[in-house]
């Protein structure tokens, strides 16, 4: 039993150790318990939320902006995937380490070497590139709108801090063709002009969101929380524009404007039966990819924004109203002097001529002002004004483009004494080329005015088309007046001022006009125009051409050939067969001969 006390001591010691151990364990457990209590009890929701926030990613799903198509569905504007290369300059140093994938080792790389590799890929000057990479800014755009290939190439270089941000860029594959109608958007995607602005609501679509949890490696955790509100893509817009006709008209009018060095010139092509606009061409057109390269006058169709005094083209309204309401017949006889006084106002013609005995049609053909006033006096001013209004003069034309010009047509009670007469031959009020085209469309379409249409339909993302309704046509003139007016217009092409608009095999009608253009100090220029209708047997197209402030002598100006070219192209493209029908215009003079000096 001598060992008993030792054993007791050992036992005592191990018991103490045990107690200490248990105490330490208890303390640790207590700390853990407290921590657990704090985490789970005091702010459980907060911590769970924090953890969730770490894992949860929410991204905005950008909708695709709708495309703009021409009448045959060819793309005029669409969105494409591009990248903005941006850099966090704080990460770019003169030298940095990078993992070499081939040797599987860290490698020291000089910035200059990377810049030298990167510059040709981005087609940038190396110095400029380096200047953009180096600095203190956390965000700096290196290059905007690069293609996916370039972006992939640039990312391969692995410059630290260089990132690619996906952006949608607008592509206008036809460049300046119809650029004035399409408009354009800014670098950061804000619509700035044309249909891009006015139809933004339809084109833009609605953004969606996607929320999901990711693991440490950035890969989505399957079966974890996930929610998605899909983005609704914007609608496509189908226009009534024909890109081929638009191009042809742009070339034709540019040729004409260059010939006369005009301030601006335009062509409007309209379908007679439907009012659809096939082309709105200007002598210069903005390329939506580079709007700064073009004068802002040409950012919108001048046929929509620029109004001018139409001159003799306006006589179409005067004669049609006289035929409709004044009891005038196309072969009524008038004595037409060179100069004539009406209520103290002396009206004269642009060129001196002998006094002729002429028909109503003859006055229209030769566009004599003195005769026009005699014809126009068959109806009162109020009626004449009423019909001008019905034709749409002085009223805005809604074709879905922003900022149109409605022209100026004052009511008759505000007219001065002279204006009663000047309005008869197309002065004292202003219209745009679109107004003029609309007037000819009305007269050619059996007297029924169709609302001009530019937007044919909206196409949903699922392909369903919604036709943009433009309502029924409104009758302005009778069928008979319309038929008579077409023959009057044919006379202009056959016997009058529009000879160059003739197209072999077809019956073509039209009316020329030269109005004075008002400048800062009164009238100091002209707008010369011609509007053609064809084929007269069954009118299909209206082509209205206007050239503003042409240079040179007014008698040399001629735009009839341009209208003829565009009309010929249209008839050919739309497979309108020639009829070889004889012209059916009226006699100009009441007695033979019909050919007399002007």
């Amino acid at each position, binding site marked *: 039993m001598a060992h008993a006390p030792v054993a007791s001591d050992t036992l005592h010691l191990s018991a103490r150790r045990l107690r200490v151990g248990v105490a330490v364990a208890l303390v640790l457990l207590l700390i853990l318990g407290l921590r657990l209590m704090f985490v789970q009890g005091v702010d459980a929701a907060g911590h769970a939320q924090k953890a969730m926030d770490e894992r949860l990613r929410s991204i905005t799903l950008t909708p695709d902006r709708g495309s703009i198509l021409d009448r045959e569905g060819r793309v005029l504007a669409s969105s494409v995937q591009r990248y903005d290369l941006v850099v966090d300059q704080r990460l770019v140093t003169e030298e940095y380490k990078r993992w070499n994938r081939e040797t599987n080792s860290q490698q020291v790389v000089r910035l200059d070497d990377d810049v030298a590799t990167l510059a040709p890929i981005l*087609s940038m000057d190396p110095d400029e590139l380096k200047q953009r990479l180096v600095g203190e800014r956390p965000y700096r755009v290196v290059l905007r709108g690069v293609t996916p*290939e370039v972006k992939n*190439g640039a990312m391969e270089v692995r410059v630290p801090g260089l990132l690619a941000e996906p952006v949608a860029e607008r592509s206008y594959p036809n460049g300046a063709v119809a650029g004035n109608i399409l408009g354009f958007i800014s670098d950061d995607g804000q619509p700035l002009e044309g249909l891009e602005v006015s139809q933004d609501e339809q084109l833009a679509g609605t953004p969606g969101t996607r929320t999901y949890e990711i693991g440490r490696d950035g890969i989505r955790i399957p079966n974890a929380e996930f929610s998605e509100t899909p983005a609704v893509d914007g609608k496509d817009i189908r226009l009534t524009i024909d890109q081929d006709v638009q191009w042809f008209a742009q070339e034709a009018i540019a040729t004409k404007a260059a010939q006369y060095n005009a301030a601006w010139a335009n062509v409007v092509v309209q379908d007679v039966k439907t009012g659809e606009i096939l082309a709105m061409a200007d002598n210069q057109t903005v390329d939506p990819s580079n709007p700064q390269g073009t004068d802002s006058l040409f950012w919108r169709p001048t046929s929509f924004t620029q109004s001018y005094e139409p001159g003799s083209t306006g006589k179409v309204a005067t004669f049609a109203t006289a035929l409709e309401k004044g009891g005038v017949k196309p072969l009524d006889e008038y004595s037409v002097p060179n100069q004539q006084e009406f209520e103290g106002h002396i009206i004269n013609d642009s060129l001196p001529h002998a006094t002729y005995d002429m028909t109503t049609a003859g006055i229209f053909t030769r566009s004599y002002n003195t005769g026009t006033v005699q014809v126009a006096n068959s109806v009162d001013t109020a009626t004449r004004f009423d019909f001008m209004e019905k034709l749409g003069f002085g009223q805005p034309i809604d074709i879905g483009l922003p900022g149109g010009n409605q022209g100026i047509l004052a009511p008759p009670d505000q007219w001065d004494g002279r204006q009663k007469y000047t309005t008869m031959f197309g002065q004292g009020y202003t219209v745009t080329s679109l107004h003029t085209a609309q007037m000819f469309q009305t007269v050619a379409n059996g007297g029924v005015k169709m609302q001009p249409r530019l937007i044919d339909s909206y196409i949903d993302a699922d392909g369903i088309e919604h036709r943009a309704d433009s309502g029924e046509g409104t009758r302005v003139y009778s069928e008979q007046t319309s038929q008579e007016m077409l023959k009057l217009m044919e006379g202009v092409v056959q016997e009058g001022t529009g000879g160059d608009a003739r197209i072999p*095999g077809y019956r073509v009608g039209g009316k020329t006009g030269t109005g004075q253009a008002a400048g800062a100090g009164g009238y100091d220029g002209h707008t010369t125009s011609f509007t053609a209708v064809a084929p007269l047997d069954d009118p299909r197209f209206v082509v209205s051409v206007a050239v503003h402030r042409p240079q040179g002598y007014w008698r040399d100006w001629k735009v009839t050939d341009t209208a003829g070219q565009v009309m010929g192209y249209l008839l*050919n493209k739309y497979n309108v*067969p*020639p009829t070889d029908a004889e012209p059916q215009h009226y006699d100009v003079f009441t007695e033979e001969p019909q050919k007399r000096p002007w």
Partner: protein
Amino acid sequence: MTAQPHRPAMQQPNLTDGSAARQLTPAAPWRPAAPSESGSSTRRRTPLSVVPAPLPKTGRGFIALCAMMLIAALGVVLAVNITVSNRQYDLVTLRAEHTDLTQTNERLTQQAEHLAAPQNLAAQASSLGMVMPGDIAAIDLGTGAVTGQATAADAENKPTDFVAAPSVPHGPNQAGAEPDEKPTAQDEAATPAPAEPEFDPAELNGGSIPAPQLQTPGR
């Protein structure tokens, strides 16, 4: 001893006695099982013997089965989970591939659109020596009547080129222009441009391209 007492039929309780219910046909009198042919008195009784007690059920097999099923289920769940996770990676790869293809498609579409732009077509046609058409004539297929008088195209009537070719923003990277210098070089290396065909004067017959081969009638 073996003979069972014969229960007489009248001992059968009359179930309907005293009730209004119709009496059922009397049940067949109960009989004992027919005695065997050899005669019940001669049959020997099986001697009683000690039967070995059945083995006690341990339940081990059942537990093993349950465990196996559990493990199998866990294994399946694990496998499914691993597969799903791996598919997630595949999905990322496929998505990248999809993006890639979409972008390639987009680029090619853009190039096609660029080439189809009216002014580019006109320029191409013009460079091939094409000119604007002359007047046209039409044949009415119903009546055979010819209207209009077709005229030859004027060799000098080339399309004008006031409308510039679509511009390419952000330098030469835009579609339309060659997409990139490197791929182009590779493409050219991969597919050599077809050699310009050469024709002998007989084939050309005075023209710049050979006349189409016509089938000789009666051949």
